[in-house]
C-alpha cells in the first residue's frame, strides 16, 4: 500500500471504493505479535507470543479474561485492546446483572463489531488498531470469533493473527478438520505447535508464550508457566534441536521454576485500569 490522496481521513472514500484508514488499521494488526485460537466442540484454546521490549521490562498482556465463559486474545495496538476488553467486561457484567445469565458470545461480538464500525464513520475518530480473537462458550457450544478493526467479524474453527501468522495458519489449515473432536490436551498441544510455527526456529519456552483455555466445566483461565512448560516438554515441541533433549529441557524447566518463584502475573503490577 502506498500513500495517496484518499488516505488522510477515515471518512474519505477512494475512487475504487476503499477506506484506506480502515485498511491501514488492519495493517497495524499485522504488525502485532502473533495470537492464535482454535476450538473443538467443547473447548477453545487461545495462545499468543509474548515479546517484551527488553530483558528488563515485563511483557505485554495480550490475553484477557472477559468473563468466566469468554476470553479474548489481541494483536495490534495493545492499548486499544485493553480498552476494548474493559468494554467487553462491562457488557458481560451488565447483561449478567439484568438477565441473571451469561452473555451469549454471538451477541458480544456483534456489539464489539458495531462499536468498531462507529469509528469508521466519524471524522473525529480513528479505527481501533487491534484484532481480537474472542473465545467463548455458551448454550450453543464453543465458539471462536475474529473481530476486525473494520467492524467485520467472522467465526472460525481456528485462526491466527499478527506477525508471521501465515505460518501458524498453514499449520492449522492442515489439521483443522480434526479439531472438532479433539480432546482438551490435544487442542492445547496444537495451539503450542501453531505458536512454535510463528517463532521461525526460535525455541518454544513457556516464558515467551501464553496459553488460555475455556471449556465445558472449565471457566476461562490462563495456564500458568509451569503447566505450559510441562506440556511443551511432554509433547517435545521445544524446538528443532533434538538429540540431547535432557539438557535444553532441564534448562527450560529451571527457567520456568525461577519464573514462577520470581514474578507471575500477580507479581507484576497490574497495568489494567
Amino acid at each position, binding site marked *: 500500500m502506498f500513500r495517496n490522496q484518499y488516505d488522510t481521513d477515515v471518512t474519505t472514500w477512494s475512487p475504487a471504493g476503499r477506506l484506506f484508514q480502515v485498511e491501514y488499521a488492519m495493517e497495524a494488526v499485522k504488525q502485532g505479535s502473533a495470537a492464535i485460537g482454535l476450538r473443538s466442540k467443547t473447548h477453545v484454546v487461545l495462545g499468543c507470543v509474548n515479546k517484551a521490549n527488553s530483558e528488563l521490562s515485563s511483557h505485554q498482556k495480550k490475553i484477557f*479474561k472477559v468473563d468466566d465463559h469468554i476470553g479474548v486474545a489481541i494483536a495490534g495496538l495493545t492499548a486499544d485492546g485493553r480498552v476494548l476488553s474493559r468494554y467487553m*467486561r*462491562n457488557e458481560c*457484567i451488565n447483561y449478567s*446483572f439484568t438477565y441473571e445469565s451469561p452473555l451469549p458470545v454471538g451477541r458480544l461480538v456483534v456489539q464489539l463489531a458495531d462499536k468498531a464500525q462507529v469509528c469508521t464513520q466519524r471524522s473525529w475518530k480513528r479505527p481501533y488498531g487491534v484484532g481480537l480473537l474472542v473465545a467463548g462458550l455458551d448454550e450453543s457450544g464453543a465458539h471462536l470469533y475474529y473481530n476486525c478493526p473494520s467492524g467485520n467479524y467472522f467465526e472460525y474453527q481456528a485462526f491466527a493473527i499478527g506477525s508471521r501468522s501465515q505460518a501458524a495458519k498453514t499449520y492449522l489449515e492442515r489439521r483443522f478438520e480434526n479439531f472438532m473432536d479433539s480432546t482438551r490436551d490435544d487442542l492445547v498441544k496444537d495451539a503450542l505447535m501453531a505458536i512454535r510455527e510463528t517463532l521461525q526456529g526460535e525455541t518454544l519456552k513457556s516464558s515467551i508464550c501464553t496459553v488460555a483455555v475455556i471449556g465445558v466445566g472449565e471457566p476461562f483461565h490462563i495456564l500458568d508457566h509451569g503447566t505450559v512448560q510441562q506440556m511443551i516438554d511432554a509433547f517435545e515441541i521445544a524446538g528443532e534441536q533434538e538429540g540431547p533433549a535432557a539438557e535444553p529441557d532441564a534448562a527450560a524447566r529451571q527457567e520456568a521454576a525461577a519464573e514462577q518463584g520470581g514474578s507471575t502475573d*500477580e507479581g507484576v503490577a*497490574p497495568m489494567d*485500569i
Partner: protein
Amino acid sequence: MKSDAINVPQNEIAAFLYFSPLSTKCFSAPFTMTKQQANWSPYDNNGGSCVAIAGADYCVIAADTRMSTGYNILTRDYSKICKLADKCVMASSGFQADVKALQKQLAARHLIYQHQHNKQMSCPAMAQLLSNTLYYKRFFPYYSFNVLGGLDNEGKGCVFTYDAVGSYEKVGYSSQGSGSTLIMPFLDNQLKSPSPLLLPAQDAVTPLMEAEAIDLVKTVFASASERDIYTGDKLEIVVINADGIRREYMDLRKD
C-alpha cells in the same frame, strides 16, 4: 344585611369554579383541604434477624430463614446470607427486594475489582465498598440492615455492622434485624470486650473457640424465636475459617 363570612357565588359557573380543585381560595369548614398522604410505600419489612461473631481465626455469620410481610409468612426457607468474596459474607435483614438489589450491585463491583486487581477483595475493602454503596442512595435508601463478616488479610475474624445508609464500624460481634433488640443485650453480656477507649487498644475478637461461638449463636436464635414473631423456622449458620466456608442449619420454632 347580606354579610356572608365568605363570598359564596350566586350562579352555576362561578360555583363550579369556586368549588373545583382549580380554585385557589382557601376557606374553612365545611370544606377542609388537607395535604394528601401517600397511600403506597416503596418499602416493606420482611423481618428476620442476623448475627455475626468474630473469633481469632474464624467468623460465624448466622440468620434465620423466615421471610414475612405484616403478620403473614411468605416463606420459611429464604436465605438472607450472601457470599460476596472468598473470605467475606454478608447477612442482611429488612426489605429483601432491596437486599437482593444490594447483593447484585456488590457482586458486580467485586467482578470489576477482580478484573482490575487480579485478586479477590479483602473483607475490610468490601466493608468500605458496602458503606459507599449504601450512602450513594442516601436520599432513597436501601432498606437493608447489614452485618458483614469474614477474615481480614491476616486471617483474623472481623465483623462490620451497618445502618441503612452506610454508617459502619468494625466490631467483635453484632446483630441486626427484628430480633436484634432481644439478641444484642445477650451478646453484650457474653462477649463484650473491654472498652475501646482503654489504651492499649484491646482486640475486639472473642477468645471463644469456633464450636463455642456456634453454640452461642444457636442459643441466641432459639431465645429470639421465642418472643420475636418474625424470627423462626430455620437458622442458617455460615462459618468462615482458614479451610474455607461451610454452612450449617438448625431448626427453630415454626410459630
